């Protein structure tokens, strides 16, 4: 165990997997000489050289597609999008090539590739640079989608993603890079895709979430405890595959839930989780599941507006109150 940052955990995962498998390479804007726009790839160019740590022109569509082609030939590319906001330029290659090649070839060509980078809002980056896009990725069969919230999850899940045989979209967070946590040093420390993590046990209500919001939910749960409410925090960690059993287990226990996510509401992750819950645990629900999401607007620049647009501990607690004391409503 070592106390390292989320950034260092990702860096270690990359270094270890590149050590282990010479077919793994990292490609993206500024990943080499600049050590990464967010320094995630610090030192990797020096360690692995220009063929395995590749600075690209600003051509998201081009290098994402290049990665898919290289994966068809058996390499294991890790494609860094400086942020997933820019990946939209490459989505055709992600959705029409990577996600479909195994199927269209009848199983002949697989596509073991990781598309990674930060997603979601940081601080005052405004509309074009503050989008949480996991819901769009999760919509497309053929892709796997991973959203780690802690340094340990970041390392264990990135290593699993790189070793996985399918295209994996890996969403990090600018605001988490500096977060510190205990991380196993073991070079074979892997967190399998599809296993949720109950980050806090509780009995009264389930806070189900993924990515960065897991931490916000933990803060909310701590506050709720003071009010005598025992909230369970279920961090899905991976959205596809999805640990439905873990969700149902928690619902069976608490009978009440709030879904918390950074992204937008319409077509968000929460909508799908709520649907699954009501389809598969209908009789266990004592109250409707409420969703806490980003305000349904492009992210504004002004500090207070941005704060108002983001899911906060307060809004989570307000939602919990609605779910716990429905009689107060209507």
């Amino acid at each position, binding site marked *: 165990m070592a106390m390292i940052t989320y950034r260092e955990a990702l860096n270690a995962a990359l270094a270890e997997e590149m050590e282990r498998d010479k077919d793994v390479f990292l490609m993206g804007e500024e990943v080499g000489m600049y050590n990464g726009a967010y320094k995630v790839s610090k030192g990797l160019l020096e360690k692995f050289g220009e063929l395995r740590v590749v600075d690209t022109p600003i051509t998201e569509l*081009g290098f994402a597609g290049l990665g898919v082609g290289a994966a068809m030939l058996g390499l294991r590319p890790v494609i860094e999008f400086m942020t997933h906001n820019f990946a939209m330029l490459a989505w055709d290659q992600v959705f029409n090539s990577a996600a479909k090649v*195994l199927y269209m070839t009848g199983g002949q060509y697989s596509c073991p590739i990781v598309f990674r980078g930060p997603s979601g809002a940081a601080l005052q980056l405004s509309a074009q640079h503050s989008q949480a896009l996991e819901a769009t990725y999760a919509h497309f069969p053929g892709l796997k989608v991973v959203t780690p919230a802690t340094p340990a999850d970041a390392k264990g899940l990135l290593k699993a993603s790189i070793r996985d045989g399918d295209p994996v979209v890996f969403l990090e967070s600018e605001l988490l890079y500096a977060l510190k946590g205990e991380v196993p040093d073991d070079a074979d420390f892997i967190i*399998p*895709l599809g296993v949720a993590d109950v980050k806090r046990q509780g009995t009264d209500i389930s806070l189900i979430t993924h990515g960065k919001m897991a931490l916000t939910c933990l803060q909310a749960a701590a506050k709720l405890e003071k009010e005598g409410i025992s909230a369970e925090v279920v961090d899905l960690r991976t959205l596809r595959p999805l640990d439905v059993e873990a969700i149902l287990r928690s619902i069976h226990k608490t009978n009440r839930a709030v879904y918390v996510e950074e992204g937008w509401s319409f077509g968000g992750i929460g909508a*799908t989780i709520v649907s699954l819950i009501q389809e598969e645990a209908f009789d266990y629900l004592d109250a409707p599941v409420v969703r806490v999401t980003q305000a349904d607007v492009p992210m504004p620049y002004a500090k207070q507006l941005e704060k108002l647009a983001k899911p906060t501990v307060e809004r989570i607690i307000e939602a919990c109150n609605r779910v716990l004391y429905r009689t107060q409503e209507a």
Partner: protein
Amino acid sequence: MAQTEMPARKRGRPESENADTPGGLSKEELHKLLRQMLLGRRFEEKTAESYAIGKIGGFCHLYIGQEAVTVGAFSCLRPDDYVITAYREHVQALVKGMAPRSVMAELYGRSGGSSKGKGGSMHLYSKEHNFLGGWGIVGGQIPLATGAGWAIKYRGGDQVCLCFMGEAAVNQGAFHESLNMAALWKLPVIYIVENNRFGMGTAWERASSLYDISQKAHAYDMPSLIADGMDVLSMRSTMMEAVDRARTEKMPTLVEARCYRFMGHSMSDPVSGVYRTKEEVEEHKAKDPIRVFIEQLQSAGVLSEEELTAMDKEVHAEVEDAAEFADQSPEPGLDELYTDVYAEENEHGRLFFDNKNRLEQA
């Protein structure tokens, strides 16, 4: 297998062995080229027939008239070289070595098809033959080809990758982004633009401000060549230069192959009337690359009537056999619906969110 294996002659060196025959090739080599073109032509004539009676569905794009481009180009390849292309790819699949049976069965949507019937006409692939297929988004294959070139370089191999595209794909951003990376990183990729004059109903000059496609290579400081895509031997000699450069100097080349599409864009598009005249089409048909090559071989005395008839008969039989096989090949099993979506499914979590799981529980 029809896989081409011509002597990958060193650049510049003349094929003096057969200095007197067309292209300096041996009779066997010349027959092989003709046979590949014939096979492609007959295969697609059969394809049109089968489409007409509903045995083939969806979008289907015929290559008739462009055979010389592929046959000439592939004759410069080794079996372990890669080819990637768009959706007008039946003939390229065959010439790269795929069995007519597996191609026809794929067009029929049968389990005996190269993709078990999941891909269809636009999505033919063969890992065995390094045929990377078969893509439907105009320009989408260009970055993928660049990735194949990257992988070859990464592994220090000496294969090359041919990337075919229609001229209309040249205007896509993917072309621009890919050629820059290929030239910047010296990737062994040859980008072959099959300029058949039209992108669907749009003539090239209505879609591009620059007429001469080969000049676009200058924007990437990349060498370029113009080839006569109606003449298999000149196509071959032009490609020989590009392939040698890619294999030995690891440098990409942009090749414009000037050709013409004899049929409509797809099965629903009339041959002429809307965007080109009957006369224009007839004019080009008069230069049918197969007829021209046959006459060339005959006048060079390396192809007798008997040989031609025998070859055509043989090719016909091969195509009929393929159609027969496709007809007999069973529909893919319904369990195939959910296979090949993911290569790796662990015991954790759910990957499918329709009623698959419930169905399986039932």
